[in-house]
């Protein structure tokens, strides 16, 4: 009984672009110990919506005990969250899952952070933590992909990393996806941390295998419990999983971050 659902108070809300919002919420001490790549579950205040919404941790201010999340409005839940204003409360559980492993972060190695679309937010906290762990800004290279010239979080990421931009339509940065970006910007990763849509992650897994680079990728699946009990959120794993012994890892509990070779996309 070390965890609980808590009521977090909204400190600020910002619309970063069209349908992308940033919420900063006051959370307890416990939650502010989160590591990059972990997520929280947000509960809707509307009783017709029973399931929590998993949202990645974008940033943590452990002194203020504040956490920032950035999300796209895609359905009823995220639309509700986008209406929150300062002073509103939202129930959350977290931090949940296993984040990116940066225990052995080597300051001389090239750490490459790849974020596509709404997979960009977790990269901010990751870049910050790598930086705090002693990796110089020059060895933290963030390649982020947008649809078009509408970007978000770029300035925040530039505080801790070198930022390289790609866009689907070429309106900004390199035209193409983040792997095109790697090539075009001539970046040679020693280790990759990625979050984004499945096709992008597939590409990264292939790239990592070809180039024998360690790649951590963060997966998504619909979730119910968010803590590993209900088996809603599994992905195919290369090895037999610890829980059910059937090569089905739980994204919420064993992930969301996996080594690329651990899972089959």
């Amino acid at each position, binding site marked *: *009984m*070390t*965890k*609980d*659902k808590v009521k977090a108070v909204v400190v600020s809300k910002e619309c970063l672009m069209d349908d992308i919002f940033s919420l900063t919420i006051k959370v307890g001490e416990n939650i502010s110990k989160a590591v990059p790549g972990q997520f929280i579950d947000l*509960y809707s205040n509307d*009783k*017709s*919506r*029973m*399931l*929590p919404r998993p949202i990645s941790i974008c940033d943590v201010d452990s002194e203020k005990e504040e956490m920032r999340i950035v999300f796209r409005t895609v359905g009823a839940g995220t639309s509700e969250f986008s209406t929150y204003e300062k002073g509103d409360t939202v129930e959350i*559980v977290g931090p949940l899952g296993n984040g990116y492993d940066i225990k052995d972060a080597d300051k001389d190695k090239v750490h490459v952070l790849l974020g596509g679309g709404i997979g960009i937010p977790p990269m901010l906290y990751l870049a910050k933590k790598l930086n705090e762990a002693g990796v110089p800004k020059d060895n933290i290279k963030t390649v982020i992909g947008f649809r078009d010239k509408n970007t978000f979080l770029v300035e925040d990421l530039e505080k801790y990393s070198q930022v390289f931009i790609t866009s689907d339509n070429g309106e900004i940065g390199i035209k193409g996806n983040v792997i095109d970006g790697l090539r075009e910007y001539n970046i040679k990763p020693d280790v990759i941390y990625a979050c984004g849509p499945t096709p992008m992650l597939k590409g990264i897994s292939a790239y990592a295998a070809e180039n024998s680079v360690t790649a951590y990728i963060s997966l998504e*699946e*619909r*979730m*119910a*419990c*968010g*803590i*590993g*009990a*209900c*088996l*809603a*959120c*599994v*992905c195919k794993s290369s090895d037999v999983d610890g*829980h*059910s*012994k*059937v*090569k*089905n890892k739980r994204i919420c*509990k064993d992930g969301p971050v996996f080594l690329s070779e651990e899972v089959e996309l």
Partner: protein
Amino acid sequence: MNMSVDIAGVVMKNPVTVASGTFGSGMEYSDFVDLSALGAVTTKGVANIPWQGNPTPRIAETPSGMMNAVGLQNPGIDTFLERDLPFLKGYDTKIIVNVCGKSEDDYVDVVEKLADSPADLLEINVSCPNVKEGGIAFGQNPDALFEITKKVKKAAKQPIIMKLSPNVTDITEMARAAEAGGADALSLINTLTGMKIDIYKRRFAVANKTGGVSGPAIRPIAVRMVYQVAKAVKLPIIGMGGIASAEDAIEFIMAGATAVSVGTANFRNPSVTLDVIKGIEEFMKAQGINDISEIRGCVD
């Protein structure tokens, strides 16, 4: 004030357990809930061998509920005996093991392996809508239900609870078949078969096409069935279907349930079971109820 209830000779300290499949074996939820506070822990369905379950997406949200087609992924009885039961044994709570299978022999196999385990009660899931063989095939046909109940009862050392499907014309017919087959108790309801379509992708929302609907949305149907079954048979009933508060739990008890399970509501609030137990206690105090059995089936 007495909150304890007796299911086929097994005394639960309070009437609240969890619905199979929504709570794993309690390990993950033990971060949120002192399992010793629960009347019983009901575990996720376990088969004779590990089951892979269905492809993802396995769930979808529905108005005041959800749909799942997890498809009974489970590690099989051997791992379960080695890992899950010893874990649960560490808590002061009763253990209800939910059993699934594809054939009568599968069920019997699992039940026999549980004979000398710390399991207090066996809940036989003959009502899962999400697996092709077994499961629902037994749960929608009174003759098949009677037969499997008889076979499992014969093999079981612990009392058996037959878990009924709501996807039937007449739930009392099924309840009577289970009673005739020798069931010691009944639990109901399992999920209602549903479907959701993603109209933009023109695809089913869960990979299995259909899934089982659970949560508050189905509560009125569950309460009705518990009421009907309580009138039709003498067996104790574990009622479930959309319980999310003490009021909901009491509704089932007043309809005739001896105990209740909290399922989908755990997903909205991981420590909801504790609120339900506390709320029942407060209700009893406020209403001057000395023994929970006073209100069982009190509505006629």
